[in-house]
Every structure is written in structure tokens, then in C-alpha cells.
């Protein structure tokens, strides 16, 4: 457990010191609760990159705030737990966070199974939870204490389905790998495409340990689709795209999420050119560009990835919520459950906000029964260019029906 608490700086403004003194005085009878947040996520398992990027994004909000004196002179304390990819461990750490650390809020839960187990704990223990990257569709179907910042994989698929329907495309082939991301992604694509009247000609699955994916591509070739949808991991995505192009298929390829990753673009090189990616981070927004530049300055270069933006947005909202007068009142009251409920209420109240994820005109919608990013208009399309060296706004005119 790394406690990233910073000692209170002496540089805090006189005003905030006074405020802190005042609050300290009024709350002399009931001890105010510490401003404690837990980050519980995979930092060493198969989804470790997402977990680490999300944590870094979160710290980019909290660290400067703490340096500047925190909220009303009080520091936000961040407790971090590494769940690996183990839902049992995640549930245990969540319980530890809620009952032993007595934290106010949990943030994290990127792998799907980890998120599912943490949502169960959050609702059992009545503990607010901000879910970051998890794409599992039904996490927020009956929302109570959980809020999601990552779009559902269905939202990727809906964005794709909308774009395809608009282009008048009727026939699609899907290729996915055999890990949960691939299987769930393909399933959600099938479910999103059907209502739009788009036919899935074939769905092909390959093993991530298979070096040659020609059998799957042959089947796609014989199905003769207008567009090919791929749900891979980075390296096998490159293998799929390379084989598609080398076998002479010229159809547009859409690759949600993974298409933007650097390992994919490096490996696919020239065959990656033109791969379309629905992306929840819009690099044409200057403030988003700045986040990624700042991130690169702190942690080294990073390809377009929604995780830092999700961590950053969750952190931003958490700070707003914790600064909210009603939440502050509850915190000063010293009753943990009252404070947690106030955080849930404040999240719903403040939850319609423009973050760094999504298009410029599509705010998060963490209100009432929604608890997640906007269902439509959240994604932009980008495409790979320059033999994998860059990502540019996509030219969707290449999506044409045959």
C-alpha cells in the first residue's frame, strides 16, 4: 500500500488556513472524517496498463491540489491497492477500504470481472464507487452506488453501428480473439448491429497464441463483407490486419480501442494505415491534447488511450464532490455513512459535466439512473496514418456500401 499523502505545505493561502481553523473549531465535538479515497485496480496483471494509466491520471488531479493546500486546507489521502486480475482479491480490498480504511470513495475497477465484484461490494456496503475503464455492459444497469467513467463496450459498438448505418453498409464480418475482451466485444457488436439492419456475415475467433490467423481470414474473405470489425489485443491485431491486407482484402477495418495502441501500430506498420478507431478521447480538443502532453512529461510518451482521461475525469469530479458544501457538512459531521450517501447525492447532482473524455459537446451523464458517459455522440473516429506513426481524424467517406 502506498500512501501518497503529502505533508501540508506551509504555502497554503491564509484564507484556506483560516477556513481550516474555523472548520476545526466548529467540528471540535465531532471529529471530521479524513478525506480518504482508495484506488483499487489491476497494476500487475493482464490489465495493468489501464490500471496504471488511470491511477496516473487521477494523481495528476490530486497531487497539484494537495500541493496547493487540499480542500479547505485538508489533504486528500489516496490509498492504493493492486488487485491483479483477481476479482476475489478486488472484493477483499474493497471491503478493507470501506471498513478498515474507512475511506469515503473508491475509484478503479478496470478489468470487467474485477469491476463486477467491486460493484457488488459497493452496493452491499453502501460505498460510492467510480468505475474507470471497465467496458462490461450491464455494470450500471441498476445503478445505486456505482458510477462509470469508461463507456460500455456496447457504446463503442453503438458508435460503430451508427457510423455504418449512416454509410448505408449492410454486411459486416467480425474477427475477435478468444480472451474475454474479444469475445465480449464481438458479442456486443452483434447486438448493436442487428437492430440497425446490418447483417453479420461471419464471426471468427482466433487464439491469442496462434501465430498464423490465415484460416479465420480465409473465412472472412469467402463471406465477402463490406467492412471488417476486429476485436483483438495489440499484437494479434497487427497479425490480423497484416494478414487481411496481404491476402488482398481491401475493405475498411474498424478496430475499437486497440487500434490506437502503440504496440499495435508499430507491429502493423504500413498495413495499419487507414484502420478506423472509435475513440472516446478527442485529441483535437486542446485541453485533451494538454492532458496527454502533461502526462508524457511526467510518465513518458503515451499513445491515445482513454485511461488517463478517465482517471483524470474521475479525480476532477471527486474533488468537486468532496468540495461540495453539503458533502463537507456531512464530512464534518463525522458520520461515515451520511458522508458516503452525501457523496452519491452530490455525484448525481454534479454528474452532468464536460470531462476530458468524449466529444466537446457531450458531457458525462452520471445523473439519476444513468451513471455513465453519454450513450450517443461520445465517440469520435480516428484513423491510423503514416505507417503507424500517427493517429489522425478519420475519413469516414471510405465506409461505402458495395
Amino acid at each position, binding site marked *: 500500500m502506498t500512501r501518497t499523502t503529502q505533508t501540508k505545505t506551509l504555502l497554503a493561502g491564509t484564507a484556506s488556513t483560516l477556513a481550516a481553523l474555523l472548520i476545526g473549531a466548529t467540528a471540535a465535538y465531532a471529529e471530521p472524517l479524513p478525506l480518504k479515497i482508495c484506488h483499487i485496480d489491476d497494476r500487475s496483471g493482464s490489465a495493468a496498463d489501464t490500471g496504471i494509466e488511470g491511477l496516473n491520471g487521477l494523481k495528476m488531479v490530486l497531487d497539484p491540489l494537495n500541493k496547493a493546500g487540499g480542500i479547505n486546507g485538508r489533504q486528500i489521502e489516496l490509498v492504493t491497492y493492486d488487485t491483479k486480475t483477481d476479482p476475489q482479491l478486488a472484493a477483499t480490498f474493497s471491503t478493507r477500504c470501506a471498513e478498515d480504511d474507512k475511506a469515503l470513495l473508491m475509484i478503479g475497477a478496470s478489468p470487467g470481472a474485477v469491476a463486477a465484484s467491486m460493484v457488488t461490494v459497493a452496493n452491499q456496503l453502501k460505498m460510492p464507487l467510480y468505475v474507470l475503464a471497465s467496458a462490461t455492459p450491464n455494470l450500471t444497469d441498476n445503478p445505486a452506488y456505482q458510477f462509470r467513467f469508461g463507456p460500455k463496450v456496447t457504446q463503442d459498438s453503438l458508435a460503430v453501428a451508427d457510423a455504418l448505418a449512416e454509410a448505408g453498409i449492410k454486411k459486416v464480418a467480425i474477427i475477435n480473439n478468444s480472451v474475454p475482451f474479444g469475445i465480449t466485444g464481438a458479442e456486443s457488436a452483434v447486438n448493436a448491429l442487428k437492430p440497425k439492419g446490418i447483417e453479420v456475415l461471419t464471426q*471468427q475467433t482466433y487464439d491469442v*497464441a496462434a*501465430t498464423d490467423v*490465415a*484460416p479465420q481470414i*480465409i473465412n472472412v474473405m469467402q463471406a465477402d463483407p463490406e467492412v471488417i470489425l476486429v476485436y483483438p489485443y495489440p499484437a494479434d491485431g497487427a*497479425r490480423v490486419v497484416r494478414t487481411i491486407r496481404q491476402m488482398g482484402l481491401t475493405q475498411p477495418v474498424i478496430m475499437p480501442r486497440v487500434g490506437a495502441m502503440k*504496440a499495435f501500430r*508499430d507491429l502493423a506498420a504500413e498495413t495499419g494505415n487507414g484502420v478506423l478507431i472509435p475513440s472516446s478521447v478527442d485529441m483535437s480538443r486542446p485541453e485533451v491534447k494538454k492532458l496527454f502532453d502533461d502526462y508524457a512529461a511526467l510518465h513518458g510518451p503515451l499513445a491515445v488511450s482513454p485511461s488517463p482521461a478517465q482517471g483524470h475525469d474521475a479525480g476532477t469530479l471527486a474533488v468537486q464532490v468532496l468540495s461540495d458544501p453539503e458533502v463537507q457538512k456531512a464530512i464534518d459531521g463525522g458520520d461515515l455513512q451520511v458522508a458516503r450517501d452525501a457523496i452519491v447525492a452530490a455525484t448525481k447532482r454534479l454528474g452532468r459535466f464536460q470531462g476530458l473524455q468524449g466529444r466537446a459537446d457531450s458531457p458525462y451523464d452520471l445523473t439519476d439512473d444513468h451513471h455513465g458517459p453519454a450513450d450517443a455522440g461520445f465517440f469520435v473516429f480516428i484513423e491510423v496514418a503514416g505507417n503507424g506513426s500517427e493517429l489522425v481524424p478519420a475519413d469516414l467517406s471510405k465506409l461505402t456500401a458495395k
Partner: protein
Amino acid sequence: MMMKLSYLLLAGLTNGSVYGLIGLSLSIIYGSSRVINFAQGEFVMLGAMTAVMFLATLALPWPVALVLVAVVAIVAALGLDHGVYRPLVRRKAEPLTIMIGTLAAAIIIYGIALLVWGPEQKFVPPILSLAPIRFGFLMTNAQQLAIIAMFFGFLVATWFLLYRTRFGLSIRATGVNPRVALLMGIRSERIVQFSFMYSAFVSGMAGLMIGPLLGGQIGMGLLLTVKGFMAAILGGLGSPFAAAAGGLAIGLMEAFMAGYGTSLYAEPAIFVLILLVLIVRPYGLLGDYEAERR
């Protein structure tokens, strides 16, 4: 139709070569020490990840990198031998307990790799070109062909070593009965040490070759270990050639299952097939050698 069939055969051969290489290296260790090595896939991972380090990060010329990759794999094997195998054997641990020891070693190697390389999937620079090579309507690339060539190369090398050298005779003798071999003047610890080194060398080279296609990720080891296990029990654990053949068979089954059946359920279906084979032939398809020895 001919085209599809030949593509399936080629893909089966390529993938099967990878599984076969791991099955072969698993079986070499098993043959001399009766230990199933849970860390076998970690050798492959080390091969791929050190390739990233030496070829991309340090930008060394590939022959130098190749030697260094081999050195790292062999050092890891020596660590496994001296740190896990020998101490456990001296404490008279059962083979299955030693297997759990190799599992602990796999966890340690993974932990070290996490510190060194981090969790992201890495780009492994190809030694050979990934540009298409055509044979009539068939298409492949140099890297994939090199994997197939390497597979058959190591098969021949292993055969030569085991059946055409005095040293190989000692290895086989140790495998049959280490105590008797010891009485005959064969130092079985040295034989086992050599088999660990040779096996790690095969796996490390496999990692170097498949890295550019599979990508380098520290978690890749377990997946490949499992493929190797399945290859080895399908063919027969006792003989490197049977295990290699098992790998080839799994590769071909995968390709045909994907080509003509359901690709989604290919993996569970193949495991079911392997179980069915084991019911009929408890020591694997080509396991007569070991069955007789019991």
C-alpha cells in the same frame, strides 16, 4: 477449395511448430528429470522480452542479440536447476511437488519481468521480413517460415543429440532410471542440468522468433506453457518427438476447427478431443515408449 485447404495446412503447420517447440522443450526436461516444468512458457517470454531489450532498446545487431537472448534463457534455466530442482531432489521431494516448485519459479520470473519491462504489450522487432512471400496462391512471410524451419531444425538436432552421441545415450539412460545410470558412472545431475539448459535454449529461441508475431507481454508465458502441456500429453510426454508431434496436431486441429467448424469453441473442443485421446491411449498418441517402460 484447394486454396482454403492449403492455407489451413500452412497455418496449422506454423502454429503447430510453435506449440511443438514448447512441447519439445517441456519433454526434454521431463525426459531427464520426470518434472513437468510450469516455467517453460516463461523461458519463451524471456526470449521475446529480451529480444525487445537487445534489439529495440539497445539496438544491437541481431547476431549479438541472438547470443544474448540465449544467454539469458540459459541463465534462467540454471537458476531453475540450482535454485529449485536440485535442492528439492536432495530433499527427496516427489516429482509433483517439484512441479509446484517450478510454478513458484514461474511466479518469480513473472515478478522480475514485471519490474524490468512493465505490463504493456511490447513491439518485438522482427529479425526477418514480415513482407509477403508467395508460392502460387499461397502466401506467408519469412518470419513464419523461419519458425517452421526452426522447429524441424531443433527436431533434427535433438534426434542427433539423443541418438547419435554418447552424451545422448547418457541422457536417455538417466531418463529411464537415474539411480541405475548413476551406478553406471553417469552423473545424472549434470545430465539434468544440460537438459534444463538445452530446453531453455529451444524455448528462448522460440520466443525470439514468435515475439514479432505474438508481441511481447510478460503474461504470455502461461498461455504458451498450457499449449505446451497439451501438446506434450497429446503426443506423449516421454519422448520429445511425440510431444512435438502433439504440438503439430494441435496446430492443425485449431486450423481445421476454425476453417470448417466453430472458431469460437475451437479451444475447448480441442481440449475435449485431447481428453478423448487420453482415454483411449493413456500415455498419449505416441506414448508406447513410456507405457512399456512402466
